[in-house]
C-alpha cells in the first residue's frame, strides 16, 4: 500500500497556486483538468486522509495519478476491505473524523460508507460510472448541486475530471443528481466503478 503523502505545503496552497497559473475560460472547450483547476480557489475541498483508487482498474489508476498530481494523498487499494479498515482507517478515525475519497469498485465504497457512519461521517458525493458495452460510459452523479452543475465537463476525460471533482467537493445544503453519457475513445472500463467522497457530517442542530 502506498504511503500517505504529506508535505510542508498544504494541499489547499498548492491547488490555489496551480489554479492561479491557469487562465482557461470556463465553458470554452478547455479540458476537464483545466476547468477543475480554475474552479479550485472558490471550491477548496477537504483535507483528505486518503484518496483511494482501485489498483486493478486502469481508469481508477488514471484517476489516482491525477489525484496525486494534485497533491491529494492518493493510495492504491485492492478489493478486500477488511485490512484497509481494521489496520488503517479504524486507527485514524479513532482520533476523529477524517475525510476520504476514491474511485473504486462499488462494494469497497459501500463498506467504507457504512463504517464511516460510526464516526459521524457521511457520503457527500457519489458518482456511478457504468460501461454501456460499446465503449461509452454512463455517469450518474449525486452530490453538491454547485459542483454537479458543471459535471458534464467530465466528458472529455472523465477520470481526470473526477479526480478534481472529488478533490474540491464541499458540503452544500442543496444536493442534485445529474446523468450523462461520455463518448467512447477515452479511458474505458469493463465494470462499474464508483467515485465518492466521505466526509464529516455537518451538524444539523
Amino acid at each position, binding site marked *: 500500500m502506498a504511503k500517505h503523502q504529506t508535505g510542508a505545503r498544504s494541499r489547499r496552497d498548492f491547488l490555489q497556486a496551480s489554479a492561479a497559473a491557469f487562465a482557461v475560460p470556463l465553458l470554452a472547450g478547455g479540458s476537464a483538468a483545466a476547468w477543475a483547476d480554475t474552479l479550485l480557489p472558490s471550491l477548496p475541498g477537504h483535507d483528505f486522509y486518503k484518496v483511494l483508487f482501485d489498483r486493478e482498474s486502469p481508469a481508477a489508476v488514471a484517476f489516482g495519478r491525477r489525484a496525486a498530481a494534485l497533491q491529494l494523498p492518493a493510495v492504491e487499494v485492492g*478489493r*478486500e*476491505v*477488511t*485490512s484497509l*479498515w*481494521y489496520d488503517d482507517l*479504524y486507527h485514524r478515525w479513532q482520533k476523529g473524523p477524517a475525510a476520504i475519497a476514491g474511485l473504486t*469498485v*462499488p*462494494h469497497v465504497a*459501500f*463498506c467504507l460508507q*457504512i*463504517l464511516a*457512519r*460510526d464516526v459521524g461521517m*457521511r457520503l457527500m458525493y457519489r458518482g*456511478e460510472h*457504468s*460501461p*454501456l*458495452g460499446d465503449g461509452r460510459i*454512463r455517469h450518474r452523479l449525486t452530490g453538491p448541486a454547485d459542483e454537479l452543475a458543471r459535471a458534464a465537463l467530465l466528458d472529455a476525460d472523465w477520470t481526470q475530471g473526477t479526480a478534481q471533482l472529488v478533490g474540491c467537493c464541499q458540503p452544500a445544503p442543496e*444536493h442534485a443528481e445529474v446523468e450523462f453519457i461520455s463518448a467512447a475513445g477515452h479511458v474505458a472500463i*469493463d*465494470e*462499474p466503478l464508483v467515485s465518492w467522497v466521505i466526509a464529516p*457530517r455537518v*451538524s*444539523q*442542530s
Partner: protein
Amino acid sequence: MPKAPLPPGVSAQDFANAIREFKSVVGPDWVFTSEQDLELYRDPYSHVWGTPEERLAAAALSPTTVEQVQQIVRIANKYKTPLFPVSAGRNLAYGAAAPVMSGSIVLDLKRMNKVLAVDDKRHFALVEPGVTYFDLYRHIQERKLKVWIDVANPGWGSLVGNALDHGIGHTYSPYRDHFGSHCGMEVVLPNGELMRTGMGAMPNADTWQDMKYGQGAGVEGLFAQSGFGVVTKMGFWLAPEPEAVLTARVQVPRYGDLQALIEEFDCIENSGLSGPPGFSSPLAAPGPDLTALMAEGWPSLQQIEAYHAKRGGPAWTLSARFYGPEETIRGTWSYAKRRIGAAISGATFDETAFYRAPHTLESIGKENASFFGLPNLDTFYALRRRPDDKPDEQLDGHIDFWTTVPRTAAGLHAGHRMVYETQRQVGMPVVATPFGGPVIFFARSFMVGFSIVTYRTRPDKNRKAMEYYTALIKNAGAAGFGMYRANISSQDLSAEQYSFNNHSLQRFRELLKDAADPNGIISPGRYGLWPARLRQTKGRA
C-alpha cells in the same frame, strides 16, 4: 429520499414535542430528522427501494447510556411514538437499520459500545449492543486473551443484534448459535423499568455470565425477533482458543450414499467432536447435461443416476473441520475415517490442511476467515457483478431466503425441489437441482436457501424478486419448511406460516405483548408481532 412519515396515529405536534424531549435526553446532535441523516436508516439492500412498500423511519435517536434509553422509552410512552431498536443496524439482507413499520423512530444503540468484561478463564464476554465482532476481537487481541469469538459474516455486525435476530456463526455447535450461546441479558422494559435475566436478577451474584437459568420461568426468548424491550447488555459464552484446526474432505461414490454420510457425521458432530460439516456435489457444476436434466421437471432417481454415470466422479463431498489440540483432532479424524469407511464402501478421505494457533488472516491463506473466529468483510465480494448482468448493471444487495428442512437426504432434496418448483412457478431461472447441498446454521437441522439479488435502478427486477420471495415463503410454509429469519418487508407473511392450532403461538405472544407494552411502542410489527392498537392496520393508513 421520500418524505419521512409521521408515526401512525401521532399528530405532528406530539411528534415535534417528542423530538424536543428526546433532544433534551441525548443532545440535539444525536436526534436525527434531516433527510441526509435519515438516509442512513433506509435498507440499502431493499428490493422495494423507492416504492410505497419501502419502510422508512420518522426519526432516529442514538443514546449512550442505559439511563438515556429508559428516559427515551418513557417519552415514547407519553406520546405513543413507536421505537425500533437496532444495535449496529447492519442486518443486511433482512432490513439493516430500517424499521418494520414506517413511521417508527429508530433507536440506534451503536454508541453504546463498551466491552464490559472478557474473562478468558471462565470464557465469557459481557457487551453493550453497539459492540461489533471487530470490536470484541480487537479487545481480545490487544489484551492477548486466550478466547475465540464465533463471528457472524460480515464481522461488522453487533453481537447483541445478531444474537437477537437468531444470527449464526461458523465454528463449533455450542457457539455458532449466537442466541443459544448467550448467558444473561439486561433489558429496558416497555415501561422504562430495568430488568436482568438469569443470575443477573440476584443482587451481588458473580455468576451472571456463567449460569443461564437462575430460577423460574425463563423469558430471554421474548427479546429475540420481537418487541418486548430494549436489550442494553448481553453476556456470551466464548470458546477457549483451539490449539489447532484440521480440515478434511470425504467423498462418496454413489448419489444414494448421502443419507449414510449425513448419519455418520451427525454422530461425530453431535458428540461434540467437530465443527459443522459442509455438503456439496461435484454433479452440481453447470453444463448442458445438467440443463437438459432439469428441463422437464424434477428428475427421477433413475435419470439422476444416468446423469451421474455420464458425468462420472464422486457424487458427494463432505468438508469437515476439527478444532482442538493436535493429538485430539488427529484422533477424531482417524475415528471419522474408520466410521465412515465402514459404513460407505468406496468413500475416500483427504486431510486438506492443518493450522496451528495463532490463527490470523495471514496464516489461514484463502480459507474462510469466519471458520477461524476472524471477523472480516469478505462477504461483500458477493456484491460483484453477475455474469448475466448487463454491462452497466450494478446490483445493490440481496435478500436472503433460508428455510429449515430435516437433516436427512430426503429432507434436503425436498427443500431443493420446493425451490425448483417455485422457480418454475414464477418464471425465475431454474438453478435448484437434486445436487444442491445444505448449510448448517444450527446443529440439528439443515437449511436450504440462497440470496436473491436486488437492483435500485431496476424496479422490474426488484418486483420479480419480491414475487419470487413471496412465493418461496408460501411454498416453504406449505411444505413445513419455515424460515428462521425474514426481511422486514415480509415478516408478517413469514410469521403466518407458523400457524399450528389457529396461530396459537402468535396469539399467546400477542397476549403477552398487550400486557407488557400496552402503548405498543417497542418494535411494532417485528416478526409479525403487532400491538393491539396497530394489529388490524399494521401501521398503514
